[in-house]
């Protein structure tokens, strides 16, 4: 138990980085995922194709590979540098890689929500003279979102857990990297491990409860 208190500050610092990553990725992946879902149902075949290829490639690639490619390929080779300082740069590279990866799952969740909206809704929108973009933003997406609140919550929970893979993207200051560093000196410590697990559950459980509550509240009565 002592080692947990001794290193608590160091580990909490790392955990804070995970939370920051999660917050950035939540916003970025929801926006990007919604755009991708709109692309995948759009009247333009090229956009549909791009969306499909994007989702299938990202969904079938291990996150570790995505992050390793982000830092080694995008940052080192393509000179996509967010900051001169390596640590800050790696943070944003990981945020980018994780958002891009999560967006593919957000897109699929929203698209399955779009599929639950009854055909009559879209037909009525068209009959009123709404164009594709109007019927999507005014009629279809608002209903689709309400259906997929719970799955989106699951995606977010998985994303929070996935922030621990940040070390593959060269960001070695998150809680997983810090835990490894502490274990290098103390050896495997059960209290430290359980402490971190509880910290993660303290974040993921409320997300689950909140989205579950929201899903019931927002459920579309049909």
């Amino acid at each position, binding site marked *: 138990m002592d080692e947990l208190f001794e290193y608590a500050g160091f580990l909490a610092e790392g955990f804070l980085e995970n939370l920051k990553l999660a917050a950035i990725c939540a916003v970025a992946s929801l926006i990007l995922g919604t755009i991708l879902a709109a692309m995948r*149902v759009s009247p333009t075949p090229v956009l549909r194709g791009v969306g499909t290829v994007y989702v299938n490639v990202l*969904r079938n690639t291990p996150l570790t590979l995505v992050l390793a490619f982000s830092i080694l390929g995008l940052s080192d080779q393509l000179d996509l540098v967010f900051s001169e300082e390596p640590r800050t740069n790696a943070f944003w590279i990981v945020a980018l890689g994780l958002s891009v990866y999560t967006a593919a799952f957000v897109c699929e969740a929203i698209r399955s929500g779009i599929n639950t909206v009854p055909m009559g809704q879209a037909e009525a929108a068209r009959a009123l003279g709404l164009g594709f973009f109007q019927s999507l933003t005014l009629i279809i997406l608002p209903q689709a979102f309400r259906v997929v609140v719970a799955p989106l919550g699951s995606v977010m*929970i*998985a994303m929070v857990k996935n922030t621990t893979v940040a070390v593959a993207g060269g960001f070695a200051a998150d809680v997983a990297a810090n835990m490894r560093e502490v274990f290098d000196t103390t050896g495997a410590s059960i209290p430290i491990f359980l402490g971190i697990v509880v910290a*993660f559950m303290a974040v993921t459980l409320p997300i689950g409860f909140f989205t579950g509550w929201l899903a019931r509240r927002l459920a579309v009565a049909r």
Partner: protein
Amino acid sequence: MSSSVLFDAPGPRARIRNHLLTAISLVAVGAVVWFIYRGFDDKGQWDGKIWAPFVDPSTWTDYIIPGLLGTLKAAAAAAVLALVFGAVFGLARLSEHRWIRMIAGFVVEVFRSIPLLLLIFFIYFLMQGGDYTFFALVLGLTLYNGSVLAEVVRAGVLAVPNGQSEAAYAIGLRKSQVMRMILLPQAVTAMMPAIVSQLVVLLKDTALGYIIAYVDLLNMGFKLIPANFFGSLIPAAIVIGIIYIGLNMALSALATWLEKRSRRSRKTAAPPIAPPGPALIGMGPATPGAAAIEGME
């Protein structure tokens, strides 16, 4: 709702607009591709000499195939163990004894909510000294995926209509016989697609071995090949990326095919169940979108 009802058959003006949009998006995609191509070109990533290793059979026999074997070995071992773990704990969660149900439920929920990489690190450090990367990776994958599979097993057995077990009890079968002869055979058919999707997740997650330096496909591709062939990083990334995507898409296609087959199968009274995914609570198997998030971690 199919996507085509979202827009009308285009008239003359809409057609022009669509052509315009197509042109703009083509230009945008082209610009991105060109930018990436130029960026890699500046760093000499398209040079013949760094691609040459990939047409040389010895690169494949010395690096890529051993790496792939490492990945497949870990995936196969973890898959078998996770199925056993899932079957045991899934059935334990259906037990008639309250305390067995509670313990199994606790174990399953805890392992499902631990970030997998932390679990692998922890097991790795528990085994002090020696090369335990394979062991740590397989055990971590087993505990996490086994817990998800336990949920699949439980959902599969619960998806068999009540009448089946009632009829079985009525003809005088005992508890274990009902499970073995009536419920499980029907549940397995319903579970098959979800199990295969979870195996895709497991295969993807073997890449976490890269972080603890287990010699898998990703490690071969990103560390050993660039180190031995003048920094041929991008070619290696592209080649191993294609291998991963190909493997996973083949497995996903198998899952889709199995789902179609079990949907029209008359061997089971249970409908195919959706994979439970990483959710903790709040999502029943029938929730739309449950299938969309499979493979997230």
